[in-house]
């Protein structure tokens, strides 16, 4: 694999948004995750949480590989974010629609990863919309306009490979709309 070309895509978002699940849905191999039992307020949302990163990959032929990294959701592990975002091809932000203030989450993560936004290498997936229809996709579109961000926003089920794949496809087309399949 010494000649293998490596690229990476980053998944970020708040605790419980589905980053680990999304990577699991796409990865060609069982993912490596650094889950620990949650001890803080995270435990109210789920028993275990990612403390360092999630990792999986997609092989393209034999010589290319796309690495999929998931950032830890908790802000106190944000030192990992800078490490992970270095050299990433693009960013997928997952927002949990069932959380108290998804708008604030959106603001926070778009601000934290603004370098991707400036380069237009970002897509946004909203999870848990089936159970929580509000805020709507239209609300997110409005909020993004307020933030002067232009990015695709889709509702996704992180467990569905098709949904996560659509997010990645949108990311790739956003980077180069002229690309032909």
């Amino acid at each position, binding site marked *: 694999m010494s000649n293998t070309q490596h690229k990476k895509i980053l998944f970020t978002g708040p605790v419980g948004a589905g980053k680990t699940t999304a990577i699991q849905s796409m990865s060609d191999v069982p993912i490596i995750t650094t889950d620990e039992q949650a001890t803080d307020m995270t435990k109210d949302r789920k028993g275990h949480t990612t403390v360092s990163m999630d990792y999986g990959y997609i092989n393209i032929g034999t010589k290319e590989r796309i690495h999929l990294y998931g950032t830890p959701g908790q802000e106190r592990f944000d030192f990992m974010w800078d490490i992970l975002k270095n050299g990433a091809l693009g960013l997928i932000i997952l927002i949990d629609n069932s959380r108290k203030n998804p708008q604030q989450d959106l603001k926070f993560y778009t601000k934290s990863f603004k370098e991707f936004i400036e380069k237009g290498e970002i897509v946004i997936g909203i999870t848990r919309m089936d159970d929580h229809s509000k805020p709507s996709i239209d609300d997110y579109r409005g909020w993004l306009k307020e933030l002067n961000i232009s990015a695709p*926003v889709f509702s996704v089920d992180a467990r569905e490979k098709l949904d996560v794949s659509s997010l990645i496809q949108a990311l790739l087309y956003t980077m180069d709309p002229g*690309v032909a399949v």
Partner: protein
Amino acid sequence: MSSTINKQPIKVGILEISSQNRAILEFFFSGAGKSYFNEVDLDKASAYIIDYDSLGAKESWESTFNETKKPGIIISIKEVNLPSTIWLQKPLTVKALTEAGESIRKMMLDNVSPEPVTKKSEKKKVTASEADIVIIEDSAEDILDGEKPLEALDTSPQIQAKDINTKPETLSINDIIDLPSKPIDLILQENKISEDSNDNVDIFVELQKANKSEVKIEPQEEALDFEADLITLIDETAESPKEELLVVEETAETQASANSVEPLITTKEKPKLSDTGTKESTSSSNFASSENFIDVDLSLEDPDIKNDKTESEQKSSTTPVDGYEATNSNEDDDIDSLLESLISGETNEKPVTEPHDKVSNIVTTSNDELTTLETVEVEVKTITPDNLADIPEITNINSKDFAQTNTKASKVLPKEEDHAKTAEEELQSLLEEIRQEAEGSPVNSTSTSSHEKSEVMQKYAPTNAEERWKALCGESNTTDLQKIIYFNPSNHLITPLIQNIKRSKESGNVLRMKFNGFIIVIDPELDRIYCDRDISSDFYANICYELIPLEKIKVHQLDKSEIRLYRKKMKEDAVHTHYIEAFIWTSSLLTSRGRLPKNTNMKNKIGLTSWPNLTRVEAIPHMMQIAALFHKNTWSLFELINKSDIQKNYVIAFYNAALALDVIQIDGETTNSTPLDLKTNNKKHRSFLSRFLKKLTA
């Protein structure tokens, strides 16, 4: 008061009234007001109740009174002084209603009432912000006191909003029980319909005259729901007159004004994509605000109203022949040019192949009994340049002449017999029908799960998928720009669909559209649409594609119990339940099938203001790439089709769907943005992305 109770209840008929106030009256009639009023049919009524703030109420009262000379209770926010009437100020209270009952009874005994009587609510001077609280308190107290002698009722006008504010939960079952000498029998019944939804537990409360010893009490939990129901019910009386005017069942007044006033969908100013050059207003071709989208008449049928239509209104009625026959009087020029071009064969070839002739006949069949789901298959020829001569002159599609002189049209158009029912009868049957539908199974389907829906949506093997794409995007597999077919969206289901979705979202009301037994329920809160037909079926494909008499579409605003029923149905029937955006997307594609909306300028620069929610809409080829191209830069349809390898029908299909979703922005003909040369990007990078995409889409 005791002597009063022994008297016979007044036979009262309810004229125009909002659904909320009707609910309050029904609640009152079944309980505290049982001894005062007995609701009967209008022809048997000794007196009437009318909500004077409702559309058409004034006219209704005038004609009723002139005809019957019977007294009435007029409910209104503003004081109404009319002979033989009692004015009841909103919000309604039990006390005011009982007093009104006494007064009307007296009026009937005296058989004369030269002077109007008014019954104002005691707490009328609260501020708007306090109104809700006052209503809750006021009404709750009144309900408790409903059977007390009027003189025993505390009529203290000094109850301050502030006081009420401090104890809004004054009503509980225990309170009711503990109140001394309240001859009220409470029977709480849980409505089992929504047993799976805690929020939707419906409690029917019957307040009946009885001894206290007869009181039956369900568990305390239900008592709380009872409170909530009461509060909700009473809360709704605080609606503003404006809200009441938004009742979607349009009356003669709105129907008459619909054609003369500005369209319901108003143009929304949008940010421009660029700041240079002369640009066309977005509204000029935005699907939802396009001039093509006339405001269609969505009211219940009423032959009298139709007869009253002015000549100009008649001219503006649409004729269901699309693409080849103009439909509005102001489109005469277009018709002429269209006919010329058809004769010369320059444009407007035969519409996209019709693979569903049989089903299309069903769509265009008018059924006398719109309340049934029966359909009759009749032969309807597709209009082509060859049979163009058969097309009747532009006329009012409702006119008898038109129907009689054109057999084809007579099958499409409503017959006079359709209008035989009175509005009241129709409304009653409509309400009954809604409940039956919501409780029953959808047409041609049984209850389905999300999993089954997924299977249905994924049923397309490659060949089937291609067939579906043909239905969605048309068949043209070339980039030949000379062969563009245009259509007029205002003649299709998509126009009222978008209008009603917009209305529904703005008002928050759940609306139900019905056309020939085909139902669409729009629920803005859940962001879902329930459609009783499979949208992947030929039937739905054709109902979108075919021209339909839009004035036959009926729209009804669902009440709470109906909403509950439909939501239950949506939960159980995933195949027929769709995201609103996905439903618009598919409907728009099925309508256009590779055609462009009339008046589209293919050289206008176009951009996407937002990406459609592409994970939830029906997939068409290249949609992701087309979205990215329009999002990254502004293109004209002409440029994009020329410069990319994407087939024109997919570009046009995407454009139509995005236009219907209101995410397209027209940027005029300027070339302000740097044209994106699709062939000069980093080849190595592109090659990698291409391989990655292949892997993802494999």
